[in-house]
C-alpha cells in the first residue's frame, strides 16, 4: 500500500513537472519550455501544457512539503549544528545545508531552530532543488525523451531518421495519408555517477635518476594496407567525362519600352481596409471575443452605408421618403475544420532519483487526441548510455474498464487494497531493438492496429541504471 502510494505520487508529480506534449496548438517555443528538464516549474507552467487525460490513475497523494512552507520557516543558525558530535549524548544531529547561491537554509513551517537541531538529516529542510534551476547541475541527471537536434524525420518504409540518444518519438499516419513525427516530453532522473582518475607516483631510491628502460619505436610500415595518396605527382588523369550546360545561341525579345511623358501620382490615398486588416477574422479567420466590438462596428458601418446613406433624389423641394431601419449582426458562424488524427505522446518515469544498479520503469503513453483514426503508429526510444534495457521487460497495453461492460464482477472500492487499478488489455505490437551509438539500445514498437479517436496505448519497460 505504501509503495503504491509513493509510486502514484511520483507519477503525478512527474506529469505535473514535465507535462505531456500534444501536437499542434503549441508553438515551438512553448514545446521547448514544456520539455526542458530544468525549466519546468509546476506553479508557473502554462495551463495549456498541463496533461488533461494522460494519467489513468487518480491523484491520491498530496505533496507534503512545498517550497512556500519551507520558506516560511525560520532560518537555521549555526547554533543548530552539531559538529563532531558525540552521538551518545546527542541522539540525532542536524544536517545544515547551504544551497550555495540561495544563502542559508530555512526550516520547514513551524520548525524553529531548536527543533531543527533534533531533526535528522533525512528529514531536514532542504530547498526544493528540483524546481530551482539555479542550483542544478545537469551532469547529475540522466535525461531521456524529447527530440534533440537534428529533429527526427519520417522516411519511406516506416523508417525514422534523426533519432539520436535520448530521443523518444512516435511516427503515425493520418487518415488523410500525411505522416507525422511527434516527440515526447523529456524525463530526467537524478542519478549522479562518480569515477576517479588515478595517478601513482613514487620516489626513486638513492635520489638517482633511473634511465629509460626502453624506447618504443615503430616497426615496419605503418598503415601499409591503406590506399593513401602518394607523395609525388607522377601522372595525370584525363577527364573521363565532361558535362556542360550549353547556353542559348541567340535570344529575341521585344521589350521596347513605351516612353512616358508624365507620371501622375495620387495626392491622397485612403484604404478603408487598413483599419480592419489587423483583425484576426480578416487575415486568419479566427473570431476573438476582443475583436467583436470592432467587427460589430464594421458590420454596422456597412449596413449604414448600404441602407441609410442610400442615394436619394430631391424633386421640387419635396423631401424624399427615406427608409430608416436598424440592423445588427446577430450571430456570426465560423466553421473551423480541424486537423486529422493527432497523437499525444507522454513519457514518465517511476522514480525521481536512482543509484547505479537500480531499475527505473518508464512509461510511454500515446493517445489519439485528434478527430480521426491514425495508423502505422511506430514509437521509438533511443536510450542513453547509462540506461541499460532489462531484457523482456517491455509490454504494451491499454487501460480500459472492460469488466463492467462485459458484466463481470467489479470489486467494491472498500475491498480493494489501494486505489482501483484499471484493467489492462494487451495491445498487439511488434517490438524490435538495435544497438545505438551510445552502447545502449534503440527500442521500437510498431502497433499492429490503428488507434481510433480516443484510443491509446501504454508502453512500459524497465531500464537498469549503469
Amino acid at each position: 500500500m505504501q509503495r503504491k502510494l509513493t509510486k502514484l505520487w511520483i507519477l503525478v508529480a512527474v506529469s505535473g513537472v514535465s507535462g505531456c506534449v500534444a501536437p499542434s496548438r503549441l508553438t515551438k517555443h512553448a514545446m521547448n519550455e514544456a520539455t526542458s528538464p530544468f525549466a519546468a516549474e509546476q506553479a508557473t507552467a502554462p495551463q495549456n501544457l498541463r496533461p488533461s487525460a494522460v494519467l489513468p490513475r487518480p491523484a491520491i497523494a498530496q505533496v507534503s512539503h512545498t517550497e512556500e512552507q519551507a520558506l516560511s520557516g525560520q532560518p537555521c543558525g549555526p547554533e543548530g549544528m552539531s559538529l563532531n558530535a558525540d552521538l551518545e549524548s546527542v541522539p540525532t544531529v542536524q544536517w545544515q545545508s547551504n544551497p550555495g547561491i540561495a544563502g542559508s537554509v530555512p526550516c520547514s513551517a513551524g520548525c524553529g531552530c531548536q527543533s531543527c537541531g533534533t531533526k535528522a538529516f533525512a528529514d531536514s529542510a532542504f530547498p526544493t532543488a528540483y524546481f530551482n534551476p539555479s542550483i542544478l547541475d545537469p551532469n547529475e541527471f540522466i535525461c531521456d525523451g524529447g527530440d534533440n537536434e537534428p529533429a527526427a524525420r519520417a522516411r519511406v518504409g516506416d523508417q525514422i531518421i534523426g533519432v539520436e540518444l535520448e530521443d523518444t518519438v512516435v511516427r503515425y499516419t493520418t487518415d488523410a495519408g500525411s505522416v507525422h513525427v511527434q516527440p515526447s516530453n523529456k524525463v530526467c532522473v537524478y542519478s549522479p555517477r562518480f569515477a576517479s582518475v588515478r595517478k601513482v607516483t613514487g620516489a626513486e631510491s638513492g635520489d638517482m635518476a633511473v634511465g629509460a628502460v626502453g624506447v618504443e619505436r615503430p616497426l615496419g610500415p605503418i598503415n601499409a594496407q591503406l590506399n593513401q595518396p602518394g607523395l609525388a605527382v607522377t601522372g595525370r588523369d584525363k577527364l573521363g567525362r565532361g558535362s556542360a550546360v550549353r547556353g542559348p545561341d541567340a535570344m529575341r525579345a521585344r521589350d521596347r519600352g513605351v516612353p512616358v511623358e508624365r507620371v501622375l501620382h495620387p495626392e491622397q490615398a485612403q484604404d478603408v481596409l487598413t483599419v480592419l486588416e489587423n483583425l484576426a477574422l480578416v487575415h486568419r479567420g479566427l473570431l476573438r471575443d476582443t475583436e467583436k466590438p470592432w467587427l460589430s462596428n464594421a458590420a454596422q458601418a456597412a449596413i449604414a452605408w448600404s441602407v441609410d446613406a442610400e442615394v436619394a433624389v430631391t424633386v421640387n423641394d419635396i423631401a424624399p421618403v427615406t427608409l430608416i431601419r436598424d440592423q445588427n449582426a446577430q450571430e456570426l458562424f465560423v466553421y473551423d475544420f480541424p486537423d486529422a488524427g493527432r497523437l499525444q505522446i507522454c513519457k514518465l518515469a517511476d522514480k525521481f532519483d536512482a543509484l547505479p544498479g537500480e531499475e527505473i520503469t518508464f512509461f510511454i503513453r500515446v493517445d489519439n487526441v485528434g478527430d480521426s483514426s491514425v495508423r502505422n503508429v511506430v514509437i521509438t526510444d533511443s536510450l542513453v548510455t547509462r540506461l541499460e534495457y532489462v531484457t523482456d521487460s517491455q509490454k504494451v497495453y491499454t487501460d480500459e474498464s472492460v469488466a463492467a461492460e462485459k458484466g463481470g464482477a467489479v470489486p467494491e472500492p472498500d475491498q480493494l487494497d489501494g486505489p482501483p487499478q484499471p484493467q489492462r488489455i494487451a495491445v498487439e505490437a511488434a517490438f524490435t531493438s538495435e544497438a545505438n551509438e551510445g552502447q545502449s539500445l534503440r527500442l521500437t514498437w510498431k502497433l499492429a492496429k490503428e488507434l481510433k479517436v480516443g484510443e491509446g496505448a501504454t508502453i512500459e519497460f524497465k531500464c537498469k541504471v549503469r
Partner: protein
Amino acid sequence: MRITNLMIVASLAISIITPFGSSLAIAQGYGNSVQGYAPNASLPRTYPSGNTHRLFGGDDPPGVVGAARLQRWGSVAGHFQAVSFRGPGTSQFSLPIDGVFQPPSDKPVYAGLLIGAVYRFKITSIPGYEGEELYPTVEIIDRTYPPESMAARFPIPINLDLDDLEDAMLGRLVTRVVYLEDPSTAVPLAETPESSRALDIPGSQDPLAVADVLGKPVAIVRLGSVAPPTAEALMPQFFLGYPPWMSVIVPESITYADPAAPNGSHVTDVPSDVSVETATVGDVPSVIP
C-alpha cells in the same frame, strides 16, 4: 576495477593541452552545458580554448585547490558535502574528533565534510595486510546538488581498491581525483555505488586536468605512507587543522512484502518520505542502510 586504456589516455593527453583553461574551470566544469546556470551574468558561460595555463593541478599541496574553489562564484563556504568511504574487503575507516580517531567501523562511513578543508582519515584491517595502517587525506573541492533530503543517498563516494592501498604501503603516492561523470560521455559500464572505477594515467599527466575533461572534479584523495608524528606539536599539522565534520545519518532500509510480487517476495526500498524515526542512531560516525 582498474582501467588502463592507453588510447583514451593518449587522446586525453592531446585534448587537455588546449581545453578549458586553468583549474578555474574545475568547478566551472559544467561550463558550456548548463541550462539556467547563470549565477553571475558577468562571467562567460563558456571559456575560451587555447594555450591556457592551468593555475592549479593535482600535484598541488592539499588544500590549495579547495581553497581556490571557495574564492569563486557559487558560494560553497560552510556547506557540508555528504561523502561515503568504502574500501576493499574487511578494511575499516574512521575519522578523527579532536585529534583522536574514532573506533573503526566495518561498515561504510558517511560524513559531511567542508568544502575546501582537508581531512585525515585512517584505514585499518586491510585485507592481507592486517596490522598495517594508512592515513590518507581527502580534500573536497566541489559540491553536488541533490534534491531535498537525498544528500545522504547520493554522497560523493570515496571508494578505494586494494591496488591503492598496496601502492601506498609500498611507499608510493596515490592521487585519486574523484569526478562527477558527464552523462553524455559516460563509460558504458554497469556500476554500483560500491564501484571504484579509476582511469590510470601516467606520471606526466595531471589527474585534475584529466578529471576536468571527463567531468566535474569534486574530491582529491591522496594516499601515502605518512604515519602520525610522535611529537604533540606536529599533531595540528598532521590533522591539517582539525577541520570540523558532521555525522550523516542514513535512513534504514525498509523491507516489506510486495503484494504484487510473486511468491510474496520482499522489496527493499528507501522511500523519499521516510520519517525521522526510522533512522538508526548509535553507530559512529554513521549508519549504514
